[in-house]
């Protein structure tokens, strides 16, 4: 299979999947036992208000018609109206998406900077203290709840030492230095999981490469260990790591829910949590849809990049 064929196949598959995702997100409101309008209003529910919301959401019409109307709106950028914010959902999401993206984009290089050298060191010094230490970091990194590491970092660096602000968000356009200072702790907490996962992947991938035929051939040819490792093995070891990085890039939006809540960052994660707590269904639908789209696009791009770098993968997938 050629890369462009693979590209076409994946992109064509993307459309029905996203359609399925949209149906699922649409149905969230209709899974609600009883009338969503009553649930949303809670104690404030009066017959008039319930009717108003039901009319607003078009709940009295048959489901397929409601879906068609909803998805037509979504495709035109109309995600409905948030009840808790009294604003269009699309406007809220547009604002908050960039904040979460900023968080993720700052976390990725930090995770990379720590994970890759540690993973390489663990692979080259297999079964030494370096390797065992990396294993320890790996197990703890994937086992510590994000909210626990975030609270610990906050306690030490913000409360106890007082080096960094406890919480809050400053836009980089407003004050770049303050913005970065506010982001350090959230980024560190978020990076921990990614470091653990990427480091372990880097280690095992590097070891796999070292075991391959061509590396042994280079060794037999008399090439120095250093040149083999850094010049040849390293490049090929990166491919599985890219897949994991892509996955992490998508998963960080889940992490953002916790991190943004703890550090009071008004991003997408905090928005979805508050929408769920306040039962603001249009906002829940909009933010879940946006996150699913982000996740799917990141995975698609990752798969395409990996297939481009290592065409063997396309054969497995065919």
């Amino acid at each position, binding site marked *: 299979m050629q890369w462009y064929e693979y590209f076409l196949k994946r992109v064509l598959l993307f459309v029905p999947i996203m359609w399925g995702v949209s149906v699922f997100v649409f149905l969230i409101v209709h899974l609600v036992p009883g009338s969503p309008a009553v649930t949303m209003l809670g104690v404030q529910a009066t017959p008039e208000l319930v009717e108003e919301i039901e009319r607003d959401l078009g709940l009295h019409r048959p489901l397929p018609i409601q879906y068609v109307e909803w998805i037509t709106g979504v495709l035109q950028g109309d995600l409905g109206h948030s009840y808790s914010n009294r604003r269009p959902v699309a406007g809220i999401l547009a604002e908050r998406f960039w904040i979460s993206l900023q968080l993720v984009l700052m976390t990725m290089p930090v995770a990379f900077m720590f994970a890759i050298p540690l993973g390489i060191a663990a692979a080259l010094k297999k079964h030494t203290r370096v390797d065992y230490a990396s294993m320890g970091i790996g197990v703890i990194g994937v086992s510590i709840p994000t909210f626990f590491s975030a609270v610990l970092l906050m306690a030490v660096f913000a409360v106890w030492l007082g080096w960094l602000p406890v919480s809050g968000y400053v836009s980089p356009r407003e004050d770049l230095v303050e913005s970065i200072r506010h982001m350090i702790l959230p980024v560190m907490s978020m990076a921990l999981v990614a470091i653990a996962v990427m480091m372990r992947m880097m280690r095992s991938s590097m070891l796999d490469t070292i*075991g391959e035929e061509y590396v042994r051939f280079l060794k037999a040819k008399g090439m120095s260990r250093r040149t083999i490792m850094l010049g040849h093995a390293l490049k090929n070891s990166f491919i599985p790591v890219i897949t994991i990085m892509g996955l992490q890039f998508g998963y960080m939006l889940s992490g953002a829910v916790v991190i943004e809540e703890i550090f009071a960052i008004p991003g997408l994660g905090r928005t979805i949590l508050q929408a769920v707590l306040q039962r603001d269904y249009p906002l829940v639908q909009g933010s879940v849809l946006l996150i699913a789209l982000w996740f799917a696009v990141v995975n698609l791009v990752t798969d395409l990049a990996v297939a481009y770098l290592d065409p063997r993968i396309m054969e497995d997938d065919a």
Partner: protein
Amino acid sequence: MSAETETPTSEIDQGEAGPTRQFLRQFSENRIAIFGLGLLGFLLLLTLLADIIAPYSATEQNYDAVLVGPSLDHPMGTDELGRDLFSRILFGYRIIFTITITGVLAAFVTGTLLGLTAGYYGSWLDEGLMRGVDILMSFPSLILALALIAAIGPSQWGIALVLGIAYTPIFARVARSESVSLSNETFIRSLEIRGVSTPRILVAHMFPNILGPLIVTVTLQLAFGILTTATLSFLGVGVQPPTPSLGLMLADGKDLITTAWWMSIFPGIAIMLPVIAFNTIGDGLRDTFDPKQVNN
């Protein structure tokens, strides 16, 4: 697991061990996994005996002992309502284990059935089921959980249900990929020719043969499940007070971290322990089932 245990015949002395025994020997060589198993056993024992071990009730408030640090009376201190943290953690384990195990087992059963069926029948059924799985997998699992909680409302059993739904696709994928290759094996084909019913083939013959990878997935998902359950409770959309919940305890503790560090540290460590146990057991099982993946 069968009759070969504890029979002092010469057969065993010759090293002609059955696959189960061989598996156990290999697994027991993995010291980290054995550590995980011991840790898990210890935690489960604490959970089962919580009624006997816990020095206090999990919900009883004592205003004479508010925010007391770790001491002989209260080994892990007390919270802002004077409740004993050690007792709350023990009962919290009971809740979090119940929720997570229920959810993961539900996902295991439904996902495995779906995956087995899809892989065995192939064609349109496979396509249909697996595209459904793809759709569910288009959401990061915490986001999927939050979306479902938005619909059904926050509650303890709600989380178990949500975990069941969110993890089903993972089991379906594992079961399907194993079952595709297995359904072409001669012994399965011969069962078909002999007229054995399809449900019987799936459950009695295919299922036991794909159990290995599924058990690895169960263990690793249990680790994930504990984290997710705790996270949802921490965020306020899971277990509701006054039920003791490790996630909620940390949420209460974080605001008091300067005055009462024990309220954050102990629940946090308490959450990590079972996750570490499940992760190390899962890694060990994976290495034992699939020696090709081990880089040693």
